[in-house]
């Protein structure tokens, strides 16, 4: 009965929220992420392989400590230009639980390309416990799940301020970010100059790191993007020619009515 009461009132509250939207606490000014040029923008856009691979390195060395990427499998990495052997080696670096075996026991084995990215925490509660109560969200769809997409991600990663503006008091363990809704974010500034050492020799400025990881995550969210745009060009060209021909045929058929 208590449960029922709670649930109906929660639902009623939801309706109330919907009916008088924006009655929430007044928020500090949140910056609009500046629009950037991305390699995957436009009708012919493709993922810059170098940036995506560097971004993968950043994910592995920085983000993966807290953030899962559970919808992506290691085999998918061929999409950013990694070879089969590279993918096998990357997967084999981590262990996954498999089983039960013939004795009925679960066992550990090295990950295979067909496995999804191994999560840093066993479950959400473990993730919260290790992160001051905040849950680091899964990053598989992050670029699609935020207004502004990659622009927002880039801005967020580089939008930290050491000191909040006068008059704003940060809660315990929070950081000030220009672009995060409400400006208070639990994630500590994740990128800084030389936070990683790039294998390809690219200079790892904070901005470069943010751009690379945003490119990688854009790929993770839309691995079909390149195929989609390539097919789209063909479909549109086909339709334009077909429609032009149908227009000519229509004119011809209707000519005896004119």
């Amino acid at each position, binding site marked *: 009965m208590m449960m029922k009461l709670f649930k109906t009132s929660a639902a009623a509250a939801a309706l109330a929220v919907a*009916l008088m*939207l924006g009655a929430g606490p007044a928020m500090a000014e949140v910056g609009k992420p500046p629009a950037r040029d991305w390699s995957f923008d436009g009708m012919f856009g493709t993922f810059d392989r170098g940036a995506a691979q560097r971004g993968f390195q950043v994910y592995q060395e920085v983000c993966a400590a807290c953030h899962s990427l559970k919808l992506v499998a290691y085999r998918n990495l061929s999409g950013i230009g990694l070879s089969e052997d590279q993918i096998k080696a990357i997967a084999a670096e981590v262990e996954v639980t498999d089983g039960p075996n013939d004795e009925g026991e679960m066992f550990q084995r090295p990950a295979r390309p067909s496995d999804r990215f191994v999560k840093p925490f066993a479950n959400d509660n473990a993730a919260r416990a290790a992160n001051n109560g905040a849950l680091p969200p899964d990053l598989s769809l992050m670029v699609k799940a935020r207004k502004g997409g990659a622009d927002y991600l880039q801005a967020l990663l580089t939008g930290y301020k050491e000191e909040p503006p006068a008059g704003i008091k940060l809660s315990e363990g929070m950081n000030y970010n220009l672009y995060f809704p409400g400006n208070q974010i639990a994630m500590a500034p994740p990128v800084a100059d030389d936070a990683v050492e790039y294998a390809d020799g690219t200079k790892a400025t904070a901005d470069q790191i943010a751009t690379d990881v945003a490119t990688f995550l854009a790929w993770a969210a839309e691995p079909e993007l390149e195929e989609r745009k390539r097919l789209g060009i063909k479909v549109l060209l086909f339709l334009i020619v077909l429609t032009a021909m149908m*227009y000519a045929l229509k004119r011809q058929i209707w000519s005896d009515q004119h």
Partner: protein
Amino acid sequence: MSNKFLENPVIKWIEYRLPVFSFINESVGSGYPTPKNLNYWWNFGSLAGIVLAIMVATGIVLAMNYTPHVDYAFESVERIMRDVNYGWLMRYIHMNGGSMFFIVVYIHLFRGMYYGSYKKPRELLWIIGIIIFLTMMATAFMGYVLPWGQQSFWAATVITNLFSAIPLIGEYIVTWLWGGFSVDNPTLNRFYAFHYLLPFVLFGLVFVHLWALHVHKSNNPLGIDIKGPQDTIPFHPYYTMKDLFGLGVFLIFFMFFVFFAPNFFGEPDNYIKANPMVTPTHIVPEWYFLPSYAVLRAVPDIWFISAKLGGVIGMFGFTLVLLLLPWLDRSPVRSAQFRPIYRQFFWVFVADCFILGWVGANTPDAVFYGIPFLWIGRVATVYYFGHILVLIPLISILEKPKTLPDSISAAVTAKGAAPDTAQGAAE
């Protein structure tokens, strides 16, 4: 239909037992006489039918790979996007197809209103059309819930809760709709079942819609009756070809979004898995529900009717009031082309609908040059109902229509040997 075709022995054998070929011919073939002056606004009816077919075709493929369970629905959609061959294509066509369906149907509705297509003897045709529209909205709403993202979940919560506004039994109805005490697995399961069923109901309704259409034939830009064979041309090949050309143009528009801006009409929040514990800061419906959503939020407490109940009545009334149109409009003239006053107010009405959509997309306490959206929404709501319930009857009585042409063919030939320009003017 050519005689040669009907003389084929197999065709003849079938036709003698089941006259399906003459039925098709009289429905969409050369046996269906159509006014010769239809303009391109008349393309949108057949387009809507084609979009319905596209939705059913892609929907069935999606259904083969979707799992209607709160623990798997979101992941199964992502599996379709990532692992199923061309799953992303099917899903993006289906997702954008919903928006395309509404664009096409809204234009179809406005066309009916401009040219008076709801008037005698097409009242039932119009009413069936509104029922189709309502069924379509229910189908779209339930389909939006299936990916089980944040907007899915909260849209389902908000909309089902509207029924709690019904006095006395409201709460029980909501529990009954949910199949529990909150939007949960039973809700998702039944929404999926209905989302699969309703398109077939739509097919049935479309059939009845066409049946009623074929009794008195299509209306036309002049809004005058067909007086004889000189006013008509056969549907095939003239309008089949015109519709095909229109379909080509429409598909270019449709496919542009599918391939290059597939999430244009969507909300980023729906790529976050549903979480009953976290309310999104801004719950917005799909764009096609924004005008009625604005009406829902515009209604204040009126006397003994709470804002909530009033809002719900307003929201449903927003569509249902259209059912009265054939009797509210007393003007004997159908086409707005010959109704100088009505024509101007028609465009004000169209603008008002856009304003309501714009208000629906904003929070009521947001302001536009110092005017709260709540008040813009209220004024636009009053105009919407005022236009239909007051202005339309009033204009139809007071307005002096222009002289109608004697016949369709007279009007077409009087304007010279270029009916295309005459059609252009009709628009």
